[in-house]
């Protein structure tokens, strides 16, 4: 009786795992077969003779290449650098300066960035960027993303800065090191893992972001890969499926690689349960 129940429980477990697993795996399957199929359709077919011709076709499309290798890199890279630097400075200052209520402040800011989201703030953000003369510019996109990501970035950084022993900085100060020296030689090496995490997190967020560039950019030669992918399958008349599939895979790879890297290096931790 006990054995029967045990076997039944195991079977139930595997059936449930298979069903839930299929739900998460099957939609992704197509993305990994179609790009290698010479005549890909919207169905999942294992190509008899896998080909890289679809990728070659992508690289002959200047709009696609510019969006992926230039515009997305500039926008995600720019926002990554800005977010990481600004958040690190702020997090360090918050950890080392006496400021009443600073913990509540960061907390409320994070929540506030969930209240003023892209959706709710798209009109004022658009008008602000419009009045600054930054519509259709990389800088406008970078700044808006940085503003939105900062509260959470500061929160993540604080976890790393809070773990730093003050004693090292104190002894350096006693030894007569200047503020910049302390920062560069003592603090920076210790918070580097935190900066890496924030940088990867910011990059992946902007790399995948669609709404902000979609609203703020006009000309096709500034579009990042997210907007390019979208325009490929909505505006191009009859979409060339082979091309879009290959492009979508190329576009996904950096995010996938960074996730695997972070997972391997630091473990995919769960920073305060916040993801914007």
């Amino acid at each position: 009786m006990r054995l029967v129940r045990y076997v039944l429980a195991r079977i139930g477990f595997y059936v449930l795992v298979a069903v839930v697993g299929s739900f998460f795996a099957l939609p992704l399957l197509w993305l990994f077969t179609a790009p290698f199929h010479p005549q890909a359709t919207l169905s999942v077919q294992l190509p008899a003779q896998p080909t890289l011709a679809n990728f070659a076709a992508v690289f002959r499309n200047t709009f696609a290449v510019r969006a992926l290798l230039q515009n997305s890199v500039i926008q995600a890279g720019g926002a990554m650098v800005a977010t990481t630097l600004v958040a690190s400075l702020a997090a360090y200052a918050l950890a080392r300066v006496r400021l009443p209520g600073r913990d509540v402040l960061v907390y409320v800011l994070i929540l506030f960035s969930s209240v003023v989201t892209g959706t709710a703030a798209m009109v004022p953000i658009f008008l602000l960027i419009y009045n600054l003369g930054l519509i259709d510019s990389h800088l406008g996109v970078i700044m808006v993303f940085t503003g939105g990501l900062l509260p959470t970035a500061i929160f993540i950084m604080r976890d790393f800065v809070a773990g730093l022993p003050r004693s090292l900085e104190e002894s350096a100060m006693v030894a007569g090191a200047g503020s910049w020296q302390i920062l560069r030689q003592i603090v920076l090496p210790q918070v580097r893992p935190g900066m890496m995490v924030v940088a990867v997190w910011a990059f992946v967020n902007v790399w995948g972001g669609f709404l902000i560039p979609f609203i703020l950019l006009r000309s096709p030669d500034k579009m990042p890969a997210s907007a390019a992918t979208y325009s490929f399958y909505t505006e191009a008349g009859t979409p060339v499926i082979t091309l879009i599939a290959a492009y979508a895979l190329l576009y996904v790879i950096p995010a996938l690689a960074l996730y695997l890297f972070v997972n391997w290096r630091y473990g995919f931790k769960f920073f305060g349960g916040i993801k914007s």
Partner: protein
Amino acid sequence: MVRRDQVALLSGRMGLAFLSPALIFIILFLLFPFLWVVVISFTDRTLLGASAVSPEFVGLKNYLALFNPERWMRRGEFGYSLYLTLIFVASCVAGQMGLGITLSLLFFHREGVLKEVMYTLVTLAWILPEAAMAFTWSAFFDRDAGTLNTILGWFGLGPYDWLLDYPLLSIIIFNIWRGTAFSMLLMSAALGSIRPSYIETAMVAGASPWQRFRDIMFPLVRPQFLTGIVLITLWTFNVFSPFLLTQGGPAFQTEIVAIHTYRVAFRFYEFGRGSAIAVVVMLVNLLLASVYLLSQRRQGVRFR
């Protein structure tokens, strides 16, 4: 003697200098839009023409138009999009929390390749770029070639034209797929923090798995469960990615509030009316955020 924590490692001025770039960004791109959108919502501002240069104050006109009882529940109007959003959010929250708890219970106190693979899959669905994921899902949903109909065909079902005939259900399924990682990670962490002895005691006492969950585990993770519900509600209420799958159509059947705002503001360039919608959205957001803050406070969580 100087007390240790009185040694300032950063002078006040340096500290301010370090903080100011972050403050400028946050004031400019979070606080200012938050206030400005309220101002715009009382004007007839548009993108071009006279009302772009010198918009006029129109009082509550935009709000009255939104809640005009004669029109507001028609397709493509604000009330209808609120109604769709209600269904969308409620279904997504239920689906994501349900799946998240199921996953975290399935792999509770279990390690191994199966768990790694599953958690990686679910997490990837969450973090991979939405534009690419929406396109793979439109392939998955395709009437003639899509994987979903192929599989249903094995059981003699379908084919269905998912995005045309069941558009709201389609974006709900898509969004559950994309968002389950959060509740899964949250609930796994919560369940992982339960002392093993509690569960062992219950097992010794002969409690069935369901009893163990209902009487021991769930009450212990209820705070995180409620936190998850509030946060997922807040995020789902603002999610724009279904736009990539359906553009709000067909015939406004998937025009949730986020997409409605976009259409009013950026297809018709009615910034005044778009802002009025945004203000309503932000009020709902604020309400949800306050519920979250209050619940955290009641749990006695120190604001870290």
